[in-house]
């Protein structure tokens, strides 16, 4: 009984992940510039990768593998690394792109980061 519940929960998580991955890839292709595409990348990494890996771990736990606990542990470690690493990487990339001014900051109201940098440069001069 508990095996069946684990398998069904895992399959639901994987189905949600597939949907998120497809949506994120379409968004990655259709969005206009880099800072808008960051949203699509977040959907793709957290929804499209973190959830299905946990779902795969639950399916492995609910099946009759000989070493299913090693499967579960490895997949959970992979999920935790993805969860930690993808926001930090996107943050570093976005900040560097903004400071190098390679991509236009297009739909914007104010740009506090640019104001701060201008202030700092003014202090140096």
């Amino acid at each position, binding site marked *: 009984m508990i095996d069946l519940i684990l*398998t069904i929960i895992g*399959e639901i998580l*994987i*189905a949600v*992940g*597939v949907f998120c*991955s*497809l949506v*994120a*890839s*379409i968004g*990655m*292709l259709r969005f206009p510039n*880099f800072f808008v*595409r*960051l949203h*699509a*990348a977040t959907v*793709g*990494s957290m929804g*499209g*990768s973190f959830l*299905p*890996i946990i779902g*795969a*771990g639950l*399916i*492995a736990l609910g*099946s*009759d*593998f000989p*070493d299913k606990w*090693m*499967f579960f542990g*490895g*997949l959970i*470690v*992979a999920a935790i*690394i*993805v969860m930690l*690493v*993808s926001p*930090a*990487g*996107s943050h*570093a*990339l976005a*900040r*560097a*792109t903004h*400071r*190098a001014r*390679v*991509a236009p900051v297009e739909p914007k109201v104010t740009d506090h980061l640019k104001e701060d940098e201008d202030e700092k440069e003014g202090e140096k001069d």
Partner: protein
Amino acid sequence: MDTQVFTFIMIILPIYLVSLLLYLIRAFKGPTISDSVLSIDAFSFAAIAVMGILSLFFKSLVLVSIAILLSVWTYALDVFVSKYLEKKEMGE
């Protein structure tokens, strides 16, 4: 494992392949270097998920450890490119 999970995986995998292909199109098209790096990022995270699902399909633990290493290398790529864009010098 019963056949129902196998058929589920067989339905899931082509959709993942389509999304991987779309990420690759953006990686080749991307007007700036950050766009291609971001889409390669998303591509590798989706590939990690595919590896996790395929490890169930083949019942082998090898793909899981490769997935962990691939995620760390993806982070290294991000950090490398952002350091290059920010300071133009790797050591500082």
